[in-house]
């Protein structure tokens, strides 16, 4: 079923979703630059809709560490679900160091890890969700971020509840000195996915009809 749904996304839809996601993360990058005074490049090179198990497998692929750290926020509104920003646990400190800057000692980074991770995840996830909300010209009820740690199964299992599908986005997080690969996962139920697809379809139609409108 997962595969079917995923394959339901046409190439155009996938491109459109990736574009929407990139809009979101570039908005996040802008926020981070304001916070940090340093340019942070965030890109989403690929988008997939998969089942939970497949999502769990996808994050485990190519990672030596079986454990992950995730910033999770739930959202409610036109569609509902949970958004997760996921990194391999071994890269968590790396990410924090990237954010707080090199001037901090390792000990400081360890002290700041939890808060900094939560805030960074909050910024990125807010930006992505805000972008979707913006496209819908609606507001969504978004929760505060929580930092969770665990295996892929744990992230996509217990916390996922009844939400069966995952909009799975690869995210590259790059500064002058570092290059960190993570994932953004939006866990949603079928109606929410359908609503999302509607948003995507509308987005495509708007772009196609308003050809004079510059592509983002």
């Amino acid at each position: 079923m997962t595969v079917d749904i995923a394959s339901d996304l046409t190439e155009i839809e996938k491109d459109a979703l990736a574009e929407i996601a990139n809009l979101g993360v570039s908005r996040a990058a802008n926020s981070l630059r304001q916070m940090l005074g340093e340019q942070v490049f965030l890109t989403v090179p690929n988008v997939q809709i998969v089942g939970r198990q497949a999502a769990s497998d996808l994050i485990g692929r190519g990672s030596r560490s079986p454990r992950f750290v995730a910033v999770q926020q739930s959202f409610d509104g036109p569609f509902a679900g949970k958004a997760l920003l996921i990194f391999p646990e071994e890269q968590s400190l790396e990410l924090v160091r990237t954010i707080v800057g090199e001037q901090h000692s390792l000990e400081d980074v360890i002290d700041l890890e939890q808060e900094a991770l939560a805030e960074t995840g909050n910024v990125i996830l807010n930006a992505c969700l805000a972008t979707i909300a913006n496209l819908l010209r609606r507001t969504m009820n978004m929760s505060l971020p929580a930092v969770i740690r665990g295996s892929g199964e744990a992230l996509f299992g217990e916390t996922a509840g009844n939400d069966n599908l995952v909009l799975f986005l690869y995210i590259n997080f790059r500064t002058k000195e570092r290059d960190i690969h993570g994932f953004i996962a939006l866990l949603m139920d079928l109606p929410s996915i359908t609503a999302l697809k509607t948003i995507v379809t509308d987005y495509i139609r708007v772009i196609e009809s308003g050809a004079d409108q510059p592509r983002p």
Partner: protein
Amino acid sequence: MFNWESILDAIDAGVIVIDERRNIAAWNDWLEKASGRSASSVRGRNLFEVFDSSKLTRLQSAVADAFQFGSSSVLTHSLNTLLPLRDEVGQNLIHNVVVRPLYAEQITHCVLQITDVTVWVTRERVLRDRQNARYHAIVDSAPDAIITTSGDGTIQWFNAVAGRVFGLTTGDLRDQKLGALLTSQDSLTDIISAGDTEGAIFKSVAQLHGTKRDGTAADFDVSFAAWNADGRRFVTTIWRDVTERVAAEQALQLAQEALRKSNEELEQRVIERTNERELILRQLHESQKMETIGQLTGGVAHDFNNLLAVILGSLSLLRKGLPSDPRTSRLLDGAIQGAERGATLTKRLLAFARRQDLKLEAVEVQKLIPEMQDFLSQTIGPAISIILDIPVDIPPVKIDANQLELALMNLAVNSRDAMPNGGTLTISCRAESIDSSRLSPSLSAGDYIRVSLTDTGEGMSDETLSKATEPFFTTKGVGKGTGLGLSMVHGLTAQCGGAMTVASRVGRGTTVTLWLPTASAGELMASLSPQPPPPPLHKGRQLRILLVDDDFLVRANTALMMSDLGHVVVEASSATSALEALKQDTQIELVMTDYLMPGMNGIDLANAIRTRDPNLPIILTTGYAEIRPPSDLSFPRLPKPYTQDQLADIIDSVVKS
């Protein structure tokens, strides 16, 4: 009616409610205290006018997102500069801010919740400091140097001991590589420098020897542990200085080595000394054997000599007394020749037994040997060339010149016989000193001339060599040699205080070496003084002679020869009876006495006579050379056996002087 705003004042956190225009709608008690501004003074005012907006861009966008999209945001102290809040004693409040939209139909308000995390952060810091203090207490009190490097070998941190051991100061840390601390041949240092932390060596302790930056050599046991933090690789190295231990081990090893060598040397010396002892014992045994043979030979030769003297004397008298008859004369001549050959043989035996009558004088071998060369060449034939190697300044030796010539002749003949197909005979002389370190049973310390005769002949086997100096041992076959040649030479050298050695290898040749003592200065002078001319014969004068000899046959024979010469002979068979006779007969003009007699010997008798009458001439007769200097210088001597002519000559010379 319940005042809901009192709830806000009851909350132990800052609460600000703003409307869409960012105007403050609520400001609770907590904020009044923390900001120092009362609710009444800020209510209705724009939040970003109340606080300096230039530093709050993130808060501004968070607020905007909350109104526009319904976003909830967290702003932490770790990533943001937030509100200027202070606690009751004026310290900065460390705080986080949460921005949440308030939902009704629309988002009309937004709430900012400010949480004081000062206590939490402070606790973290205190804990961390404590933990660090404990950690540093452990690593700084560790007896070993502990150094942490990044994956590329750059030093990140080191403990106090490492600072002392390697002379590191914290100022050194920038770009300081671990490998620079120790210069070593060991490839391990390269690996450390290169930061190759993947190698299997990091699982174990390695021993390193090298030179520290201050130039001192040091040994370390180094253990490695690689670890990851913050996505980076680190290596902690623990260096235990084992320089003293290694030095002690090396010293111990050296000591053991020395002990082992010493043991080996000791064993070697025991073996050498045992061998030396065995050699000396063999030599002693050999010399004792030769001594015994010599005594035996000497005794036998002495008696034979006496008998030969009798025979020769009788025969010579008989020839005088018998009418001239060719047949009788031929028989007598044959008998005399036989007896003379017997006399020669006994002389050689006595020479071997070191009892020949030696006339020791200083002899210059650099003259004597070249003078012999022609004669030697004739004797050994033209097939053998003679090479002389004699330094002209070599000191003289103390020996009987005639006997030395005879010895050299004997040895040359031996060499000739060893070289039937010709060859070379080398005669070399060298001065040598024997000190106490080279003593042998046959040589005492002193200065010697080493006279060596080396031939290129067939040589001798060890077995032959061991018997070469024994009398009557000959390799020349029956009738070809007496077997007394080497024995004689051996006896001669021994008698004059030297020695003879023979070295030989089959097929390579033989070297006979004579060790002859050098003559002292006094002996040299004596020999240089001109020899007195032989006294003329004074035949015809009749003398009254006292003849003393315990051997009846010899005495009778000599008495006959004396009577035949016209002398009157008074006979005595012992020294005692001789002295008695001298008392009775005051007409005695000459005393001739045998040396070896029971009771008082010839020398004692002669001395006794000389004390009574210093002018009475005395002749000693002897078959032995047992009369030791200076006794032999005091009285003229006549060696046995002697002919009537020899008897007449000595009587004449004594009476004349």
